[in-house]
């Protein structure tokens, strides 16, 4: 039976341990966006960031923003394909102490291993639902490496209210919805290829 949770960051490890693949979450509090190149810069400079990453959520996303009266405003923010970050996610989870990662499309073996070893989770948001998900952002708390990385890849530090539904795809026990998906799809594919 799947459960529904409302969590606030920083999320404690015992709260992460309750989550099971298939559960639905709504997250409030501080989170940050990050993609491939962002992760490298965060790892290199995390000591210099004015906030702690411990217990926060890394959001695989590249927003559309607009500047109004010298303030940044989120126009559109939805999840990006997570798998690009698969090769670096293990180290990222290990080094930052984040509680979880959210994105879309699924991750692989290295992220599963990190979730098991460091008690973290990976969740997915509905891809392409950016207009709706943008409304969950209450405030932009800061932006880092905007010059070097450009808008989509910069690190956006956000405060969100009830960001979700996030479907837990990998839990801290290593259960993975997308791994089951791959197996199911491959079986279906073999069957179909015999039919054509």
């Amino acid at each position, binding site marked *: 039976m*799947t459960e529904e949770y409302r969590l606030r960051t920083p999320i404690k490890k015992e709260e992460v341990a309750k989550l099971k693949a*298939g559960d639905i979450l709504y997250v409030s509090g501080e989170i940050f966006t990050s993609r491939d190149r962002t992760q490298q810069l965060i790892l290199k400079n995390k000591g210099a960031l004015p906030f702690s990453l411990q217990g926060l959520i890394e959001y695989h*996303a*590249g*927003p*559309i923003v*607009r500047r109004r009266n010298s303030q940044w405003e989120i*126009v*559109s*923010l*939805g999840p*990006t*394909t997570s*798998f690009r970050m698969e090769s670096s996610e293990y180290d990222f989870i290990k080094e930052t102490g984040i509680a979880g990662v959210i994105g*879309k*499309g*699924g991750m692989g073996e290295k992220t599963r291993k990190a979730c098991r070893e460091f008690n973290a989770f990976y969740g*997915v948001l*509905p*891809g*392409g*639902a*950016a*207009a*709706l*998900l*943008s*409304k969950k952002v209450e405030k932009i708390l800061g932006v880092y490496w905007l010059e070097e990385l*450009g*808008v*989509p890849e910069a690190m956006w530090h956000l405060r969100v209210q009830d960001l979700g*539904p996030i*479907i837990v795809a990998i839990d801290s026990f290593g259960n993975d*919805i*997308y791994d089951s*998906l*791959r197996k*199911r*799809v*491959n079986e*279906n*594919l073999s069957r*179909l*290829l015999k*039919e*054509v």
Partner: protein
Amino acid sequence: MDILELRKHIVEAIRVCETRLPEDVKKALRKAYDEEDNPLPKKIIGILLENVEIAEKEKRPICQDTGTLTFYVKRGGWSEEELQKAINEAVKEASVEIPLRPNAIDFVSGINSGNNTGRFIPWIVWEPGGENLEITVVAKGGGSEAASSLRVLPATAGRKEIFRTVLESVAQAGAKPCPPIILGVGIGPSSEIALDLAKKALYLRPLGERHENSIIAEMESELLRMVNRLDIGVHGFGGLTALDVHIEYASIHPSSMAVGVVASCWVLRRAVLKVNGNSTVIVSHNTQPFKPKL
């Protein structure tokens, strides 16, 4: 109509493309919602539909990945040079106005132009025919490219190999291209013809319409059934994988048959700007079914 006015209309066409899901796609998605019994996929499709309404009402992009813009242009009386300029300027303006995400990066320097224009981008395809100017703009996000592929097969390859190419490329992409996807399949003598036809079949023909050739039409329906039996489902949660499959073909070469597969995420984005003298119309779908001049 002068070039400045045309530019404004192109900006509006880009806005329609990015903020309003075409009626045919909306209809297919609503049908998917009605027919879905499984609670999680149904909940997700419901959210996608709600998102479409918010985007339309607030004129916000449906997806934050506003994609790479391609323009299919029937020139009417206009010159390529003036149209190219009007389109490029319109893209820059739309990037600020709507706004769009800056998605054009020069891979040599690593620099993002910030305005969605760059080397050969936006991509403009000059189409033959048309007494009047007609510009179709389509926006394609990065994630959907996960299910695109190309295979050059021997000319003796038949239906089986075409099906295999499509099924394998959809299966390996899994949930990455944001299913339910829409597929365009192009068959032709060479790689670029196959991919060009695949992309046109995907974007320029309304969902639900079948190819005029009954054998191709039957292949479309059968492929759609098979792709759905892969059971990837909305964002990988099982169930409906594709909303439609469109096939287009050109005569092949005696020795080779290229099969191109181009996928769109559920947010298939297109808008058509028609200019007749001083009257203009912008629609989010093409009222004329795609018929190649072969």
